């Protein structure tokens, strides 16, 4: 008899974000203006748990909803109780506030232990079911870090559950395909990527939910070891509005007009700068600075400005070396009527200027990801980024390459910018098992102690990185779109990795840095960083790192892997994607092939087909064609989205496209606000018209 602990979270309703929700002066999102709702993927997690309970057919099995949050988070527990939960636990305490994923996963794991002991009579036969990620943080880290704390199997990105011979098996998304796996032991963590059937509230359960007392625990009750701000291993340096969308959002009335736009945009050679990433100049270590008072500082605007004022003042006083600064100088600055520094702030800043020693030492590392015997594009992008970071830090780039028979790929990594490749080969690493990979990577980490460790934010990286970070006790920032080295803190922390990422569904940007850790870890969105041109003349070192494995180092049994055959050319100049609005596979094939063929033949450009996650799920095409957060990030000149609503997870994957065209019947489709041109209409009508118009334009020579 299994039981189910479902993690739920209260989040701001990102779908309700309107212009009203932003401070007109600062451009920042005012979070209190947004209503609070249950995280949508968590509603699917509840349904998934209910499905498991139904499949196992034992009504005695319990579903327990668990959340951590302020007292008002009780609302999401009542949501759970009104659908399927039998009991609900609210972990609430002032001491838990301000936690990052580390200090969230830790108390939740301890609460799980307490639930197991007190509500499940100590039974180890339970599953923790969670939404794959929350819409406010988008990190997907908490479940994996909990799994690491509890030392249990973690099956991330589950889309379906099956039950045979008393055993659950799960379908999970992997890069370019899907896999059916079963956990070798219980308890196990399951994170749900998408499950289409959220439960409805019943009248009976709702009335009960409104009167049932919730089980309420504080930080001390669960005996968590890392809580709140103090227990967190990252801190937010600043939050700022993302650059306004540069998309034109123009409506097009006719297919003829649209054909013209395609002709104009498919052949262009210019690429826009990325909208999501801030372009910064390189970092120079203090020892090499020609201007000693330039701190390459990252902080609040006020702090940055203060350092500029101070540098100007020191210049005015003819100070050229931090060593010249004494109490008299300090007094002079303080007595300057134009400058208003607090004494303490000035002291801190002057100390900061004398600091030269970087906070962290060691190499800059990248975790390589291999799929179908080839290195993933994201690995090369990260290696390019790591090269840039390592150069400004005066250190080496190391790439960790783990797997079975992956040795021959090492040279490619060196060509791409690596100085060293740490090669860990073992038969148990043939397939991605979070436990064996976590062991291999953390073993290498502890042997060499890099200062920065980057992973791709892929289905694999987003599970592995949180587990490794938790195991070795380092902070982690997910899904970065900007990585820069800067000095931080007035008093002077030198050469810190600034990790910039979108949050709240891309409505705000946050710059985060690691604290209380020996290494700075981040995952980075694929398709954002630039890979370097391969340089086969580069030389590097291959370091073989041996790790001892036993059978206990595996947590999953892989029953079936489905990967699409044939190659997908996502570096094509034009990508045409279909979504749920294509209705069926026949439409998808017929319409997309037709349009792809016409554009390819008539314009002489490379064209590839893409799809949304839903389209893949509905069987319109293979997983390998999936574009988006759980698929591949692309950046073509022209992206044509047909029957695609524009969910954030999909749009993240096309953020670096030059021109986006959307075709959709729904007047309110969110994609219309995130594209350059759109036409309202059904694919079945528009696409044939468009093909005819394209042919016509070219034949008549226009």
């Amino acid at each position: 008899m299994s039981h189910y602990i479902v993690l739920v979270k209260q989040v701001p309703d990102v779908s309700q974000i309107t212009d009203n929700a932003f401070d007109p002066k600062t451009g920042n999102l005012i979070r209190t203006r947004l209503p609070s709702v249950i995280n949508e993927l968590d509603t699917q997690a509840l349904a998934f748990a209910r499905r498991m309970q139904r499949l196992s057919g034992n009504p005695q099995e319990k579903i327990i909803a668990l959340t951590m949050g302020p007292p008002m988070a009780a609302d999401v527990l009542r949501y759970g109780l009104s659908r399927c939960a039998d009991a609900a636990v609210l972990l609430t305490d002032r001491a838990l506030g301000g936690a990052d994923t580390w200090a969230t996963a830790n108390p939740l794991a301890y609460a799980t232990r307490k639930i197991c002991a007190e509500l499940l009579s100590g039974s180890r036969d339970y599953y923790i079911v969670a939404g794959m990620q929350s819409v406010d943080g988008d990190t997907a880290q908490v479940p994996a870090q909990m799994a690491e704390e509890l030392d249990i199997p973690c099956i991330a990105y589950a889309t379906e559950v099956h039950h045979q011979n008393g055993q659950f098996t799960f379908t999970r998304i992997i890069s370019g395909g899907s896999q059916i796996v079963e956990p070798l032991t219980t308890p196990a963590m399951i994170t749900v990527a998408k499950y289409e059937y959220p439960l409805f509230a019943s009248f009976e359960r709702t009335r009960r939910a409104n009167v049932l007392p919730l089980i309420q625990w504080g930080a001390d009750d669960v005996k968590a070891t890392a809580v709140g701000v103090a227990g967190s291993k990252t801190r937010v340096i600043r939050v700022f509005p993302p650059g306004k969308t540069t998309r034109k959002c123009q409506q097009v009335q006719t297919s003829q007009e649209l054909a013209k736009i395609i002709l104009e945009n498919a052949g262009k050679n210019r690429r826009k700068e990325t909208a999501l990433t801030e372009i910064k100049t390189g970092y120079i270590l203090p020892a090499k600075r020609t201007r000693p008072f330039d701190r390459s500082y990252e902080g609040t605007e006020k702090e940055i400005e203060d350092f500029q004022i101070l540098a100007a003042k020191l210049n005015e006083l003819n100070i050229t070396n931090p060593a010249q600064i004494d109490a008299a100088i300090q007094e002079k600055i303080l007595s300057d009527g134009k400058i208003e520094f607090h004494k303490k702030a000035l002291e801190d800043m002057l100390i900061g200027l004398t600091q030269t020693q970087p906070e962290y030492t060691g190499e800059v590392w990248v975790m390589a990801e291999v799929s179908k015997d080839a290195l993933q594009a994201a690995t090369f992008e990260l290696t390019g980024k790591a090269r840039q970071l390592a150069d400004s830090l005066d250190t080496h780039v190391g790439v960790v390459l783990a797997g079975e028979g992956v040795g021959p790929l090492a040279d490619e990594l060196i060509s791409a910018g690596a100085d060293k490749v740490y090669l860990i080969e073992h038969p148990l690493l043939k397939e991605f098992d979070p436990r064996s990979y976590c062991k291999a990577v953390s073993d290498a980490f502890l042997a060499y102690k890099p200062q920065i460790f980057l992973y791709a934010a892929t289905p694999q990286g987003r599970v592995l990185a949180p587990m490794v970070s938790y195991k070795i006790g380092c902070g982690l920032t997910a899904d970065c779109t900007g990585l820069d080295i800067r000095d931080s803190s007035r008093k002077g922390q030198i050469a810190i990795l600034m990790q910039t990422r979108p949050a709240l569904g891309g409505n705000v940007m946050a710059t985060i840095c690691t604290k209380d850790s020996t290494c700075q870890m981040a995952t980075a969105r694929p398709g954002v960083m630039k890979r370097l041109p391969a340089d086969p003349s580069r030389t590097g070192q291959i370091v073989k790192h041996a790790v001892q494995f036993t059978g206990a180092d595996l947590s999953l049994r892989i029953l079936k892997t489905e990967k699409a055959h044939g190659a997908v050319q996502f570096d094509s100049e034009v990508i045409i994607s279909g979504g749920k609005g294509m209705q069926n596979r026949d439409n998808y094939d017929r319409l997309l092939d037709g349009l792809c063929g016409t554009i390819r033949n008539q314009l002489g450009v490379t064209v590839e087909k893409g799809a949304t996650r839903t389209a893949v799920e509905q069987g319109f095409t293979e997983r390998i064609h999936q574009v988006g957060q759980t698929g591949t990030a692309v950046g073509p000149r022209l992206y044509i989205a047909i029957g695609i609503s524009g969910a954030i997870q999909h749009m993240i994957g096309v953020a670096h496209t030059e021109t986006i065209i959307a075709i959709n019947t729904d007047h309110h489709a969110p994609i219309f606000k995130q594209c350059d041109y759109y036409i309202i209409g059904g694919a079945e009508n528009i696409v044939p018209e468009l093909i005819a118009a394209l042919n016509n334009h070219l034949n008549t020579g226009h």
Partner: protein
Amino acid sequence: MQDYTNVSVLIVGAGPAGLAAAIALKKQKPDLDVAVIDKAAGPGNHNLSGAVLEAAALSKLLDPVVPNWAESEDAKAVLLSKVDRDDVMFFWGSRMAFKIEAAIKMAKAFRLAFGQMTHRGDYICSVSKLTGWLCKTAVSLGVEVLHGFAAEDILWDADRHIAAGVKLKDQGLDKHGQKQLNYLPGEVIRAKTILIAEGCDGLLAETFTAKAGLVRQSNQLYSLGVKELIRVSDAQYAKFGSGRVVHAMGWPLWTPLVGPAMFGGGIMYPMGNNHIAVGMIVGLDYKYCDFNPQDALTRFKEHAFVRQFIDGGTVVEAGAKMIPEGGLYAVPRCPDTQTIGRSNVMLLGDSAGFVNMCKIKGLHNAIESGIAAAGAVADGLDTPKGLARIYTKRLEEAGVIKEMETAKNFRQTVARFGPLQGMPLSVLGGWLPTFNIEPDYQTMMPAAYRLKPPVTFDKDTFTAVAATEHREEQPCHLTLRDETICTEKCVGKFGAPCITFCPAGVYERIHDQPKPANPSNCLHCKTCQRKCPFDNIRWTVPEPNGGPQYKTM
């Protein structure tokens, strides 16, 4: 364990009537379990009105419950201001406007029925906000207000003439009616007594009326109100004034000689924070098959008098709702006992049709009927079969019936004689004989509305700001009784008027067949059910938690 599917008092509909009943009842019987269900996702989401509210009914409800309620923060946030300027206008063409207050005042002096059309001293409020406040008050008293539950049917024992409960709508069916993995069959809620307070033309009220054999002496007549909330400039709002209400007759619904000739009028109410509500109410007994009440709203907004206050403004919210205008003769009653309801089931507010057309108000009666129902239940819960009788008696004692009497023939007279002759004739009020007027759907003619604006009304934006949505994968809640009627009779003669008059653009012609192609846009106004010229459309309740999300309507 307690049986949560049983409840002593079930109130269907968390609007002003239902919540008033819940509040008044819980105050008198704190230990009684009272549950209110509503199909909307949250308080006030489906409530739309003008609105001006007579304070007396609200005082009667709240005085015993919340001491000094008028001084509370909630009250101040909802009851924006009192009417200090009451403009009744007549629009002559697209530019000229005359005040006809003098005529109304004279009528009042002579105690003529339409003299009631004055609003000075009444509160200006948004009924969605009012509902939110009443909901909060009810919950604070211990009433269970449960949103997201749609009643589909009443369990009526035809032999014993008593109701056992209601059945909720099934959820989790796909478009073709197949059960999805999350299918939840509609639960049965058993109740000792049921108060139906669903608002205008509710599914449960009509089902109950039919099952229990209630009869309307005269057909119910409806109007459709379409309304926009417009954010205007500081200067425009100051010029309009925060205590002024405007009611305008004439153009574009009625013009002399060449027509058009429709009953209704435009309204303008200040809603605080530089927002003005602009609405158009049109009697559904109009005859123009190409007419859309939103066209009249467009024309009204273009009128020189209106335009000065809203030009350059932004529409931030919109909605549409029907009003039951038939008056006292259209209230369904039990033929044997003349009760408004039967046995343990009572009809409240707009579900009964307590709109006084001379006052063009119904909110005060909705609240009064809630108080009357609460009194009846408090008195007679042990003898549930007699509740409707006590309720009807209490309505009489409260003066609701008497007030309705004064307006009993108003709407019918206008319908019979047209706005020009009917309005003065209605002065004779109660002396005229009762006439039965044909239902609204029978008045459609192959005639064109002369003032149709050149640009088609932008229904997409209208529904977008009404924030209406439904779960897409559910069976269509609108059905055509016979599809061939549309193609063989309607398209040729009238050109499928549903496509035009539906304020949400639900209907579309697909392969020549007019059909409810976009049911997820539905605003739950039910105009289609009452105005399809062949009475061919049936509105049933969709899955709960859908529909519009009114905030300040």
